Each structure stands twice: as structure tokens, then as C-alpha cells.
């Protein structure tokens, strides 16, 4: 720390940091545009001008840009200097020369950084009399709207899109006051982080196109802190609601997790909550020849009570996309031994292996922020750009760690962004990507390796052996693979902070184990190695920590003794396991009760469907791939519905899954009053499962108050509360109460800064844009004041020696007439919920089967042809089904699929690719890949 003098008063500052960041951290309202805490300084907009003085005697001083000036001990600057103020006001005036007067109809209005800065600068009177320039706006696809006339040429968009996120199809074109930020022609933005432009842009050039379709004023949104449910990383979000529908998602800064950015699946997947496929009322049929019919909540529960009376045998199937509390409530309802996790045996074993590795130590899992600090990375088997996109963005930053030393050596401070990039040139730190197929981050890779899972595992094991001779040796490895393993080992060994990334994306346990061996080999050498396993869903790890068997074991149990009632929690089983297995599982139950928020293949077969709250309508805890427990909060109370109209005046039947369980327990068992709020469930869970005990601290309890008040979900400018449902009833509806959290469904309450896990929106006086976030950090760009939210549940013992996995898979051998079908993941399409959002659906891939052109031509096929796929018997594939069940095998083999062919030259001879998790693939959705299959020209 050092002392700087601002307007003749001393302040502490970080030596060498840029003065803009320091001034903001000290709480000064110094306006800026082009600077961004994650993007650094470039000195383009000239908005943060201040006066710098040579010494105490110097009264004249000179204007400098705060963002481009380093804080040095004794430096004397002035923010209030009249000349500096005058200059800053002129910058606002220059920007307004061409900025249109469309604030009242602009989507950015009310949270516009340009509005805030214009007011802050005191620019009020217009002197420019000329015409404003105009541009052609482009159609950039379903997610981002483009309105170039509003542009102030701050270059943030292209700096984020190209330099930070690796995009190529958005650029600054033309020059002078005509710089055009767009694509070479209209078209969908290619980069999967394009939605961040909406927040990075300080004004309304790039706005949220999904919000535009159901626009509402930003201050009229009801918001709460939430967590993304579209992959296993647990990025923090702020969903916003108005009139019972979710309108948009914004990034909720968490310095340890997502920082300033979200992926497009996370930002735009939210519309599934408004989907026509939502279950909004209890549905019931008393015999399976009938269709499901709406019934009242009371009738549904009464029916359930009757079924449960007399000691019915109840089996529960939980879900990795439901909260800890929802799963725990089901487990409590059915009893620990009757609770199953709702995933296949194969996935369960993969996840169990990961959990075991994470717990065992000595290596730990870094947070996403810590991933950015890794200086050498091996990705083994996981297509992170598609399965955990935000992790891919973190890797784009980690490859900067080693080249940054070049800049440091030249004495360039790291905030001086363009100078740093110039010094670094195209240098990237070591990043090795060994995956089934090409990935979107290959452009920053040092080396890539392509092969089926067995080959990936063998490469990983060979790296481990190259690092530590005690680790098992891989027999029969090719010279190329051997040399590559050696080269990777060298780079990992030499790194200060090596990292290994893997996951269950390629469906292979040997790959998961190989990644552990590499990490442990580094640890055994005394290197501070870390590993990061990607898990597929928002609560995969939480569900695993809760414990429970697979769908296969559930079937076994039901084969032993049929279930009277099968309760399925937030889960479409047909996506989890082979259709035949699920058919038999469902057939083995007398009554199927489905509790979910959307309709799907499984719910269509249920006898009763109870409407569950989606993530934005419920509270709960999720555990991400890091083992970080994070609380998400209810954003709004879902309303009732009559014939498609949201009925504003009465609460509907939708409620949290755990409340359904509680209600079922009440009607079925009469155990009144067990749980009255989420805290009761969380506490019960923490008491029963000690490893989950920290979830109690994931957020303050419902009793928490600031100055005796709750924290309002609505902004103080929220309008129309008393009349917004006047079309239904002129009586003001009673404000919903929230017994579960310290947040209130109101605009009234504590107006200061709540604890970090309870921040429903970032706002500060004079700061209406997302950049108000600066006011919630002690050091701008650093963690949230009070610490980044989330409780880590898994901290392995360091220093311990781990025993290597010894299983070495045989090398891949192509078969005659058969292909190994590999799972290929897609950011848009592979995830179940986001695909219900129209924007995401529009960008989704269509079903296909991929082959390399040579294999295709041997089959007489070319790109676009239809190919026939017949799956080989399941038992013969790599899935290790415990129950020897011939019926299963026959059922699968019988099915034939037809798919259009797509060339993928990097696929090895004898392997084929199938899109993972894609809807529209019929029963292929539940087939565990890799699997063997026969291909034929149609």
C-alpha cells in the first residue's frame, strides 16, 4: 500500500494500480466508459480525466487520464479541479453530439451507464445544432439486439468479444465518427458469450433481444439472487420478473465463480420458466387409459392421502437438477433406502468416482476464478466450451498467465491492456486439449489430441507415468502419443500452478481416473496441482453427496417388490437411461406421481403430476462442480392460471417441490408441522448428512434482518404495485409473504447493502447500470464486500499421498461393420431446460450422425445423406449394467434410427459422433454413449 493525495487529502492506494480503479475503490464517483475491471485500461474515451500535480507547489497541473496513470507514492491528483471537471463534461457533450434522444423508448433506459455518466458530468445543455449520424442496424440473431445509432465508440464490445472471449465475427469497422461495431454482414453472433455485450456496452447498442420481446422497465422488475441451472458450474445470476413471467437474466457478480460474465445458455435459457410446457395445475388420472385432467390441489392431495394410507410402499427418484432441499425432502418422505438419484448406473459410477477423487485429496478443486490463475492446463476428455462454457472462458484467461511475464519484464502494468497484449503477441501459455472431437477453444491450445475415450485415458495415464514412474505404465502406446505425453508432462511439471480438467462428458471412468493420476503425480512431486471436474447438472454433486442408488438399482428393488407409489422428482427419466429400462421401471409402479415444472415423456406416463416451482419460483441450495454450496432465491410467486391467462390476484398451485413432499407427508402420515420453512428443511438435511452441514451458512436464514427489516426484491422505483392487477380486481392484492428467506416481495425494507449472498440487484445512488457493482466491492474488480457467496463443502487434506488408479484400458480397435458412437455436446441443444427457450432453440443443432469422410465414403455416404443406425446390444457396450437383463438388450437392439450424416474429419476411423442430450432424437436421448452401433446407407 502507498499514499496518494486526492484534492489535497491523503488516501491509501495499491502501488502501481491505475488511478481510476483506486479512485473508484475509494468511493469517488469518477466517470468512465472504456475501462472495465475485467478488461483493463486503454485510454480511449478520455472520460476519467483528472488533474495531476508535480508537487505541493504546483497549482497548475496537467490533465491525465486516471485509467492510464499508475498510483505512485506521494502522487498528487485532483478530481474536483475545475479544468478537469470541465473537460469531463465536454467528453459527455461530445458523446451526446451523435447520441439519439431516444432514452424514453430505449431498452437500456433506467440502467444506462451513459445516462448515469452524463448526469454525473453535469452535462445538461445541448450546443450542437447539426444532424446526427445514422447507421444500419444488423440482425445479430435471436439473443442480441443491435442499435448502432446509440454507439459512443468506447470499444468495449469488440475488446470483450474479440480480445477477452476469442470471438471473430464482431469488429470495429470504418473510422472517425463513423466507427461501426458489427459483423461483416447480418447474421447470428458466433461467440457463445455474445450476451455479455448487453452488459459490457455502456449504452443501448447491444440489448437483450429476449427482454425486448416482453419488455418491461428495469426498475419494474422484481429480482432476487439466483444460481444458473443450465450446467454444473453454478454461475450466479439475477433473474427479473414482471406480471408473473420471467423477463431476463443478468449476471450476478461472484468474484470466485462467474465474475462479470455468463455464457449465452445461462443468460438466455431462462425462458423455459415461461414455457407453454410448464405444469401449472395438479393433473390426475385414475386409470391409465384416461388422459391427465386438472384437479384442485386439495383433491390431488386427498387422493394421495388415500393411496398412502395403509403402509403403501413408496419409492422415490430424485434429480440432479433439483435442489438439495427438494431431494432431501423426497428422501425423507420415502426413507433413505427407498431413495434413488434418478441417474443411470453408468453416470452414478462416474460421478461417485469424481466425488471420491475430490474428497480423497491431496489435490483440490479451484474456483472458476482460480482456474483463470492456472498457468498450464491439461483438458482430458471434456469439451468444456459446450458442457461448461464459462470454464472455457476462464481458460482463455489462464493461457495469458505465462505470457504476461513478458509484459511484466518490460515494466508494463497488467492493467495497461493493449500494451500488455502487444508485448504478449500471440503467445499462449501451455494448454493441451485431448478430446473426442474439435472444440471451440482449440484456437488457444498448445497441442490438441483427438481420439475415443480409451485413447484419451491412455494418454492421460501416460502423462502421469511420465511425471511419476510409480504411476502405472501404459503398454503398447504409439511413439507419437508417448512423445506427446512426455511434452505435456514437461509443461505441467514446469508450471507454478498446473491444472487438469476432466469430467463425465465423454462417459468414461478411465478418463476420470487418468485425470486424477496426472494431478496426483504432480502433487506427489510437490507441485501445487489442482483438478477441476465438469459435472453435467446444476446439482449433480449435491445429489451425489446426498447419496442414493441408480435407476438400475431402483428397478431391481421394484422387481423384488413392486412399489405402490413411485414419486419422481423434477426428472425426465427417458433422458437418463435406456427407454426400455424406464418403461419397465414405470410399469413396475402402481401409481406414478411426478413432481416437476415442465411436461415431458416421463410426466406423460404419470398418474399424477404436481406443479413444481422452477428455480425462479423457489429457494434452495445447489452444489456446483467445485463443491460450492450456493443458495438461490425465489424471484416471484407464481400465480394461478385460467385457460392460459395468468390470474394475477391469486396464488396458483405451483409450489416448491419440498413443500409438495411436506404436504404429502401431512396427508399420508399426519406428521403435521414438520417443516414450515426452507430453513427447517436445510437444518434437517444438515443434521442428517454431516458432509452437507455447511449449507446452513450458504446464506443468512429467514430470520435475518438488517436494521430490523427484510431486504426488498423490488427497487424503490418499482411502479404500479397497487394497480397492476386492476384489470382483474380493483382491490390491491395482498403482498405475498416470504416465510423462507430474509427477502421480501416488496419495495419496502432495508435500502442499504445486504450481505453478499442476499444482493437482489446492484444499485447505488447515481449508478443505475450494472456498474453499480463497483459500490459492492471493497476493491473494484475484487471480491464482493463481505466475501463472495458460497460455502465449499469439499476441502481435501493437503500433503497426503494418493494411490494411483491402476486400471489401464486397452487401446481402441476399430471393428468391422460397427462404429463406436461418441457423445458430442452442444451448448445449445444438449441441455434439457434451456432448449425450451425460443432463442436457444433457434440456435440448437438438429439431429445428426457424424463420421469422418473416409468412413462415410466406405459406406457409400456423403454429407447430408440419411444414415441408418442400429444400436448394438447394450450389455456389449461399455456400460456395465449390474443386472443381467436380456429383455433390455433385445429392446435396444430392435430399435433403428435414421439420421442425416455430417462430416467430422477429426473423428477416428471406426468411431461416429452423436449429439448428446438433444431432443428430437427419440429414444436415443437415454442411450448411454459411447455405445457400439451398426451404420447403413438408407
Amino acid at each position, binding site marked *: 500500500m502507498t499514499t496518494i493525495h486526492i484534492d489535497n487529502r491523503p488516501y491509501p492506494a495499491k502501488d502501481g494500480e491505475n488511478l481510476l480503479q483506486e479512485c473508484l475503490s475509494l468511493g469517488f464517483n469518477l466517470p468512465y466508459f472504456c475501462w472495465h475491471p475485467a478488461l483493463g485500461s*486503454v*485510454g*480511449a*474515451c*478520455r*472520460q476519467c*480525466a483528472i488533474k495531476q500535480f508535480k508537487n505541493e507547489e504546483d497549482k497548475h497541473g*496537467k*490533465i*491525465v487520464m486516471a485509467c*492510464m496513470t499508475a498510483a505512485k507514492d506521494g502522487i498528487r491528483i485532483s478530481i474536483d479541479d475545475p479544468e478537469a471537471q470541465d*473537460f469531463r463534461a*465536454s*467528453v459527455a457533450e*461530445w*458523446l451526446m*453530439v*451523435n447520441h439519439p434522444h431516444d432514452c424514453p423508448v430505449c431498452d437500456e433506459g433506467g440502467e444506462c451507464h451513459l445516462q448515469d455518466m452524463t448526469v454525473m458530468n453535469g452535462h445538461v445543455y445541448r*450546443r*450542437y*445544432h*447539426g444532424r446526427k449520424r445514422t447507421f444500419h442496424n444488423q440482425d445479430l440473431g435471436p439473443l442480441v439486439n443491435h442499435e448502432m445509432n446509440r454507439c*459512443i*465508440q468506447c*470499444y468495449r464490445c469488440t475488446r470483450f468479444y474479440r480480445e477477452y472471449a476469442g470471438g471473430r465475427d464482431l469488429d*470495429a469497422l*470504418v*473510422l*472517425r*465518427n*463513423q*466507427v461501426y461495431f458489427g459483423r461483416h454482414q447480418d447474421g447470428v453472433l458466433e461467440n457463445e458469450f455474445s450476451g455479455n455485450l448487453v452488459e459490457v456496452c455502456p449504452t443501448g447498442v447491444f440489448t437483450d433481444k429476449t427482454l425486448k420481446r416482453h419488455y418491461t422497465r428495469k426498475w419494474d422488475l422484481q429480482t432476487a439472487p439466483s444460481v444458473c441451472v443450465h450446467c454444473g458450474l453454478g454461475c450466479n445470476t439475477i433473474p427479473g420478473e414482471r406480471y408473473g413471467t420471467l423477463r431476463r437474466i443478468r449476471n450476478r457478480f461472484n468474484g470466485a465463480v462467474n465474475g462479470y460474465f455468463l455464457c449465452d445458455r445461462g443468460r438466455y435459457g431462462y425462458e423455459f420458466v415461461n414455457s407453454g410446457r410448464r405444469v401449472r395445475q395438479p393433473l390426475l388420472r385414475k386409470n391409465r387409459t384416461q388422459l391427465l385432467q386438472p384437479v384442485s390441489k386439495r383433491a390431488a392431495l386427498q387422493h394421495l392421502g388415500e393411496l398412502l394410507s395403509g403402509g403403501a410402499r413408496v419409492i422415490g427418484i430424485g434429480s440432479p437438477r433439483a435442489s438439495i432441499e427438494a431431494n432431501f425432502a423426497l428422501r425423507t418422505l420415502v426413507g433413505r433406502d427407498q431413495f434413488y438419484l434418478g441417474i443411470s448406473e453408468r453416470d452414478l459410477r462416474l460421478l461417485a468416482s469424481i466425488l471420491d477423487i475430490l474428497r480423497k485429496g491431496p489435490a483440490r478443486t479451484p474456483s472458476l476464478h482460480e482456474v483463470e490463475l492456472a498457468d498450464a492446463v491439461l483438458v482430458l476428455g471434456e469439451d468444456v466450451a459446450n458442457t461448461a462454457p464459462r470454464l472455457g472462458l476462464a481458460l482463455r484467461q489462464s493461457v495469458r498467465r505465462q505470457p504476461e511475464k*513478458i509484459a511484466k519484464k*518490460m*515494466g*508494463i502494468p497488467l492493467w*495497461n491492456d*493493449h*500494451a500488455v497484449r*502487444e*508485448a*504478449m*503477441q500471440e503467445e499462449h501459455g501451455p494448454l493441451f486439449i485431448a478430446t473426442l472431437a474439435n472444440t471451440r477453444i482449440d484456437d488457444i491450445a498448445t497441442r490438441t489430441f483427438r481420439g475415443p475415450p480409451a485413447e484419451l485415458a491412455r494418454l492421460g495415464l501416460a502423462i502421469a507415468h511420465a511425471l511419476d514412474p510409480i504411476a502405472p505404465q501404459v503398454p503398447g502406446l504409439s511413439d507419437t502419443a508417448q512423445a506427446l505425453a512426455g511434452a505435456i508432462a514437461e509443461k505441467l511439471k514446469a508450471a507454478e500452478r498446473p491444472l487438469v480438467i476432466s469430467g463425465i462428458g465423454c462417459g468414461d471412468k478411465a478418463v476420470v481416473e487418468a485425470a486424477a493420476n496426472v494431478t496426483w503425480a504432480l502433487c506427489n512431486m510437490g507441485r501445487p496441482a489442482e483438478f477441476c471436474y465438469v459435472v453435467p447438472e446444476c446439482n449433480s454433486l449435491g445429489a451425489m453427496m446426498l447419496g442414493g442408488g441408480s435407476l438400475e438399482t431402483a428397478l431391481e428393488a421394484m422387481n423384488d417388490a413392486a412399489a405402490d407409489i413411485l414419486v419422481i422428482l423434477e426428472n425426465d427419466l427417458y433422458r437418463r437411461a435406456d427407454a426400455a429400462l424406464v418403461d419397465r421401471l414405470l410399469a413396475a409402479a402402481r401409481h406414478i406421481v411426478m413432481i416437476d415444472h415442465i411436461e415431458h415423456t416421463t410426466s406423460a406416463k404419470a398418474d399424477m403430476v404436481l406443479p413444481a416451482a422452477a428455480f425462479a419460483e423457489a429457494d434452495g441450495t445447489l452444489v456446483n462442480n467445485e463443491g460450492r454450496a450456493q443458495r438461490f432465491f425465489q424471484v416471484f410467486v407464481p400465480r394461478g392460471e385460467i385457460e392460459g391467462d395468468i390470474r394475477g390476484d391469486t396464488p396458483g398451485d405451483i409450489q416448491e417441490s419440498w413443500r409438495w413432499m411436506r404436504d404429502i407427508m401431512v396427508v399420508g402420515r399426519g406428521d403435521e408441522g414438520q417443516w414450515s420453512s426452507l430453513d427447517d428443511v436445510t437444518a434437517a438435511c444438515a443434521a442428517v448428512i454431516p458432509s452437507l452441514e455447511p449449507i446452513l451458512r450458504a446464506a443468512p436464514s429467514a430470520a435475518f434482518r438488517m436494521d430490523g427489516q427484510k431486504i426488498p426484491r423490488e427497487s424503490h422505483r418499482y411502479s404500479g404495485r397497487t394497480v397492476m392487477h386492476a384489470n382483474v380486481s380493483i382491490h390491491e392484492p395482498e403482498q405475498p409473504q416470504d416465510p423462507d428467506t430474509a427477502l421480501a416481495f416488496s419495495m419496502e425494507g432495508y435500502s442499504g447493502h445486504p450481505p453478499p449472498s442476499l444482493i437482489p440487484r446492484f444499485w447505488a445512488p447515481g449508478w443505475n447500470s450494472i456498474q453499480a457493482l463497483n459500490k459492492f466491492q471493497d476493491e473494484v474488480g475484487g471480491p464482493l464486500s463481505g466475501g463472495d457467496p458460497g460455502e465449499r463443502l469439499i476441502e481435501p487434506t493437503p500433503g497426503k499421498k494418493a494411490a494411483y488408479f491402476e486400471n489401464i484400458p486397452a487401446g481402441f480397435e476399430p471393428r468391422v461393420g460397427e462404429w463406436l458412437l461418441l457423445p458430442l455436446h452442444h451448448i445449445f441443444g444438449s441441455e434439457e431446460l434451456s432448449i425450451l427457450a425460443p432463442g436457444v432453440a433457434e440456435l440448437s443443432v438438429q439431429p445428426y450422425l457424424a463420421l469422418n469422410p473416409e468412413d462415410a465414403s466406405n459406406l457409400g455416404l456423403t454429407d447430408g445423406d440419411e444414415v441408418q443406425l442400429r444400436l448394438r446390444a447394450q450389455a456389449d457396450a461399455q456400460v456395465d449394467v449390474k443386472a443381467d437383463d436380456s429383455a433390455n438388450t433385445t429392446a435396444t437392439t430392435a430399435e433403428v434410427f435414421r439420421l442425416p450424416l455430417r462430416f467430422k474429419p477429426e473423428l477416428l476411423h471406426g468411431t461416429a459422433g452423436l449429439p448428446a442430450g438433444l431432443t428430437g432424437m427419440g429414444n436415443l436421448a437415454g442411450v448411454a454413449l459411447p455405445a457400439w452401433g451398426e451404420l447403413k446407407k438408407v
Partner: protein
Amino acid sequence: METPLTHNISPGKEPPDLAQYEKAGGYAALRKALSMSPAEVQAAVKESNLRGRGGAGFPTAQKWSFVPMGDDAPRPKYLVCNADEMEPGTFKDRMLLEGDPHQLIEGIIVSAYAIQADVAYVFLRWAYKLAARRMEESIAEAYRHGYLGKNILGSAYSLGMHLHVSAGRYMCGEETALLNALEGKRANPRTKPPYPQVSGLWGKPTIVNNVETLCNIPHIVKRGAEWFKSLSRSDDGGTKLYGVSGRVKNPGLWELPMGTSMREILEEHAGGMCDGYQFRGLLPGGASTDFVTAEHLDLAMDFDSMKKADSRLGTGTMIVLDDKTCPVGMLLNLEHFFAQESCGWCTPCWSGLSWIEQILQDMEEGRGRASDLEVLESHTRLLGPGHTFCALAPGAAEPLQSGLKYFRDDFERHIHEKRCPWSPT
């Protein structure tokens, strides 16, 4: 009077080929330099007081001195010749490029040797087609004769040289924007520090020198600093290419002792004003320098003397304003150029200059307002050095601020008469 720079140049004729250039004493400086250490070459240039001829007048040897030398210096190092001559009214480098390409090539090789550069680039204005052809031929010739390439003239020193014909932007004259353009990026200027000497082309140590500057180097090395200083009438060594354009009897370009007075250049060499035209003022060193008026004409045209007239030597090629030309119209022409050539990077430049242009356009078309003068005046302050990212906008503000000072009546007449007093209607 010696004219080393233009000695071999015969306007309108083919330039000397390599044999003719050698015959006239060419490449002797290179042979001499190769027998000296790089530090000795740098010392000779330092002693000569050579200041950069691109416009800013920064001492050349001092610029070189920041380049890391020695075995552990980052490699490759680059020397870039700035031949992107686009300053309005300026055509001095063109004459050197077209008239004696080998003189420039020798200058580049000797300078590159002095900083131990590995590769040299000539960044040439696209419109200089003839210069491009002649430079290309001459570079090939120099390669063929062992003046370029591996082990030049049998020495341990090697240098590659490439001609890069630019896409044509005024901005590329700014050395860091030039480097960005050379790398294939937008021609936006870069932050300084780091200076190009530390992190220049492709992040490596780089020197960017002007054509005229580099052409002086062989003569300094060959004939010594004392001789070079003796050519000048001022403290800055050497001769200078001075030019005059506008309504003068004999517009043109002359190599004269550094520090020749404006009056001498204007009256003796340019032949004075055309008949029927009165002198009103001139821009001494291209469009981005302040106007001087008749009272300043006896000042020496050198870097320090011109400050006395609140102006700059710039490129030393003056543009003369006469009494039958509208000063507001002249400024509109210039500010239109600057606004158009703004790279669009920093706000004061891309927005401020187009606003200035708009106001001048309004005045010319009879839509001027009294309040416009205040806006223009405030811009001359607001676009000052340090306020903007590079020197383009401060340069654009120079003729405007002096124009407002010397020709205020003309501005006011535009506003009051609601027309341009010089326009025929």
C-alpha cells in the same frame, strides 16, 4: 552551399541506379559504419544534433539510445522508415524517395546497424506509386549487391528490408499507429509508455524514423558531425528540405541550410506572392501547425525559433494564405481533412473534430451563429496535448486556434453577413 540530400536528384529524370549512386560516393558511409561499432555510429549522430524531420524534431540519437543493446536484448529488433507522408502541403519525402532511393536505403542500413536491427520496413504512402516502384527496384538491387541480406559486405551484420505499401491513412504517420497498421491491425495509435524502442513492432524493440531523417545519416557518418553542423544556420544540424505552396510565383521545394528565414524562403526561393495577391499568413510546417503572419517572417525556420511565433517547424513545408482566399474556407478544408482522418479511437478527436468541421461548414454556408465562436475556441483548448490519445487532434487545433486569433474578423463577417464574403454570390 552544399545540398547533400538532393545532390543526386534531378527532378523529372530517373534516379541514380546503384552503380551511379556508388560512383557519386554512395554506400561509402555504410562501409565506414561497418568498420565502426554501433555505439560509435550512434555517438556520431548524437554529436551532429540531428533532430527528427517528421515534424516533432525529437533528437534522433536520443531516440535510438532507448533501444536495448547487447546480447540479451530481445530479438528481432526492427527499424521502420516512416514514408507515409500525408501531411497536407508536404511533399519533401516524396522527392527523396523518387529522386534518390539508394540514399534512403543506405540511411536505413546504417541506422539499422546502429541499433543492431534485424529487419527494416519501409512503410510507404499508397499514393506514391512511382516511389513504390523505384524503392522496390532499388531494394532488389541492394540485395543483389550484398548491401542487404546476410553478412552485409562480408561483415557479421545482416539485415532484411521490406517495402510495405500502406492502405493510405494520415493516421499511419503517427509512429505507433503505423506499427499497428504494419501488423495488420487498425491504424489506431498505441499507449506510450511503453515506447516502440521497448515494445514496438510485434512487441519487439523498434525505431521509427522519417525518410528525410534517415537520408541524413549516411552523410553524417561519412563526413562527420562538425561538417554536418556547419551546414546549418542554427543549433540544429544539417540542411532542411523547405517547401512552399499557395499563390506564390514559384511554388516548390528547396534544400537550404537549417534555420533559413521564412522571408528568404518565401521571397527569394518561392518568388514572393503572385501578382494581385496579398500575403495574409502561412502555415509553416504543414496543416497541423499554427498560422504565422507577416510580423513573423524574419524568424528562422528551425525547431526552436518557430516557438517564438507560437508555431512549429513541423515538416518545413509551408502553405501560404492570400487575401483572395477565405480563411474560414481554408480551415474548413483542413478540419474536414483532420476529422475524416481521425482514427475514431478517442472521443475528443472523433467527435470534437467533426463538430468543428460542422460549424465551419455552417459558417461557410451562412448558418453560423455567434455562439459558434465560443464552441470553436473551447475546442482549441479541449483538444490540447494530453487531452487526446495522440497528437492528431492537437495538431488539428493549431491552425484553428491561430486562425481564430489572426482572422477573427473574417469569422465574424461570416456570422453577421450570413454568407461567406468570398463566395461569388
